[in-house]
């Protein structure tokens, strides 16, 4: 038995069904890119492309008219644009968590889902980056964000958390793309070597960089992969911490709290796992990958969601405790009136108008995931599909609650207002799904959506048993004879 085989005494079993061979894995995963697309793929692709087209129209209208086409106005200067930004970037974080943090913890089950989650990261960060880029209504001035020498001697203000965001998000996108691509090189080589026609061979061959699986390459490659995992882990924590600084460094009640960085990171991982789950369940059934992404993988992901749901629930409760404990009337107003809807703080006894958003958030993010305490729910595909969709809705509401209920009624009652989304707001948000799914569907169709080389490395007996070989070679009469297979 080699050292990385499942330990039977601990009740560990092989991650893939008994008897799966390396060739089965290649056939299953590479086959998706080689066979004709299922009809469902075409339907979803054309739908996504249409939604993307609608978003382009909404953006064109925004650029012509200015940001007045959105519902943002005093006192709510930030609304759906930053809600969507934080939501999308949070979605991306699960990808990095699965590919980097679980790699550092040697969680081998990640290999069945990491490629998929990394792709999701890249596309989600692209969708997220769209909002800061367009929210000024003048995207052609976006280069002002970068410290470029100019004739006006004007430089960015590096003390602003919004500036930190620019660096954090662009670094995150760059490193995620590099990490993703480095992981893909051996799999592109697999596709190249299976190609029947020259065009395919040339395109995959180009991206495979001439990879020939040499161990002198693998040796450095594995260390580089470890370094990427090592730098991505603090990076992903820093990105959402910096995103939370956009709020936490201000003095707005409901934002000015020190719990924000860990609270945002936990929420990000939570929502990202939920989206990986939703997409994985769909792809797994369309492309028949049940043997590679097994119920056991899904069970482990559900446990993760339950854990992060508890963290998020703790943060929600702690915010209320601190609002009460601080004795700060503005904090208490935001939490008890604007969010919880308690009318007794209002002289007229009215409920806050956005209370329903808070309850929707608590229901989806704290109550729904509690079903995952039960093994039956963790292994039931319909339950996890519904729960993961609800969690994503809940996480969108979390950001909406934080942003809008804090700003629509803050310090001065004379400057209170209300936010109403416009059709362009809604179209832009829905449109990002078009962008995301268009890219995602192209990815599942043309790029191996599961890390072929990494999954093979997890097969039982995939690595030589050095102890057996040494013991075998020390017996003098046996030198030269092959070590029997396990």
């Amino acid at each position, binding site marked *: 038995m080699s050292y990385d085989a499942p330990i039977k005494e601990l009740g560990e079993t092989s991650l893939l069904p008994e008897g799966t061979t390396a060739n089965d894995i290649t056939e299953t995963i590479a086959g998706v890119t080689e066979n004709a697309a299922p009809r469902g793929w075409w339907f979803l692709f054309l739908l996504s492309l249409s939604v993307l087209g609608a978003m382009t129209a909404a953006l064109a209208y925004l650029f012509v008219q200015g940001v007045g086409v959105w519902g943002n106005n005093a006192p709510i200067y930030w609304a759906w644009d930053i809600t969507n930004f934080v939501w999308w970037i949070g979605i991306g974080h699960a990808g990095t968590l699965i590919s980097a943090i679980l790699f550092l913890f040697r969680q081998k089950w990640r290999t069945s889902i990491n490629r998929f989650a990394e792709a999701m990261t890249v596309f989600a960060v692209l969708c997220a980056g769209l909002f800061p880029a367009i929210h000024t209504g003048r995207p052609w001035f976006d280069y002002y964000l970068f410290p470029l020498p100019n004739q006006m001697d004007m430089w960015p203000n590096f*003390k602003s958390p919004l500036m930190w965001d620019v660096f954090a998000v662009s670094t995150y996108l760059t490193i995620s793309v590099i990490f993703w691509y480095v992981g893909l090189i051996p799999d592109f080589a697999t596709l190249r070597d299976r190609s029947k026609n020259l065009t395919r061979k040339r395109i995959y061959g180009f991206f495979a960089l001439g990879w020939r699986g040499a161990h002198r390459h693998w040796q450095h490659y594995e260390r580089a992969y470890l370094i990427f995992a090592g730098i991505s882990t603090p990076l992903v924590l820093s990105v959402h911490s910096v995103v939370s600084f956009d709020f936490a460094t201000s003095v707005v009640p409901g934002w000015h709290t020190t719990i924000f960085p860990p609270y945002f990171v936990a929420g990000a991982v939570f929502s990202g796992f939920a989206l990986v789950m939703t997409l994985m369940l769909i792809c797994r059934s369309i492309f028949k990958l049940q043997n590679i992404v097994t119920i056991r993988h899904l069970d482990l992901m559900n446990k993760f969601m339950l854990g992060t749901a508890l963290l998020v629930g703790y943060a929600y409760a702690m915010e209320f405790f601190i609002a009460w404990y601080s004795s700060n009337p503005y904090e208490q107003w935001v939490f008890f009136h604007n969010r919880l809807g308690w009318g007794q703080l209002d002289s007229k006894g009215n409920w806050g108008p956005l209370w329903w958003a808070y309850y929707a958030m608590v229901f989806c993010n704290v109550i729904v995931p509690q079903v995952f305490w039960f093994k039956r729910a963790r292994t039931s595909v319909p339950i996890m599909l519904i729960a993961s969709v609800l969690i994503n809705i809940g996480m969108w509401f979390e950001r909406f609650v934080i942003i809008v209920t804090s700003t629509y009624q803050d310090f001065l009652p004379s400057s209170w207002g209300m936010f109403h989304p416009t059709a362009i707001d809604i179209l832009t948000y829905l449109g990002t799904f078009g962008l995301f799914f268009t890219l995602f569907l192209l990815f599942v169709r043309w790029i191996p959506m599961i890390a072929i080389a990494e999954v093979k490395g997890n097969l039982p007996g995939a690595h030589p048993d050095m102890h057996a070989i040494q013991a075998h070679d020390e017996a003098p009469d046996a030198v030269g004879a092959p070590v029997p297979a396990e």
Partner: protein
Amino acid sequence: MANATKKPALYLAEYETPNAIAQAAMKVRDAGYKNWDCHTPYAMHGMDEAMGLKPTRIGVLSFIFGMLGVAIAVALIQYTNAFDFDLLNIGAGYPLIVGGKPPGAFPSMVPIMFELGILLCGFATLFGLLGIIKLPMHNHPIFASDRFEAATDDKYFISIEAGDQKFDLDRTRALLEATNPTYIELVEAEVL
């Protein structure tokens, strides 16, 4: 090219199991070859030892460039936000006082120092990796073998290149045959 002459480029031996290739690799290692390699569909653990490879030092590069990124961030922020002299005629900085903090305040620099450190570390790791393993190299004699296509699927190969000082058509073949491969091929390359 019809008149192109060919010369031997490398020997290729195919194995079915991880144990078989590890055992064979130890023999090639002990025979003193330098210019040879194992080709596997995934990173196989234990082969560093079987091939007698030194540990990789790619991390040194990542560390140096990561620290360089941190230094660049400090220089950039201090130059643009804390001083007002014009270096190399790229435009003078402008000391900014925000929130009553001094223009060169350290704590607000930390996030960008961190991010630029990570960014440069990532680029150094990527390009360092490609530089060390000498990729991209789209044309290699080993691709002339049809059998080699299984190296990215489920077969394990050892290649010994003709450039090795100990390479000899007969003796190298005999060595590989003694390692119980399922197949041996002499791969040739065209001489231009």
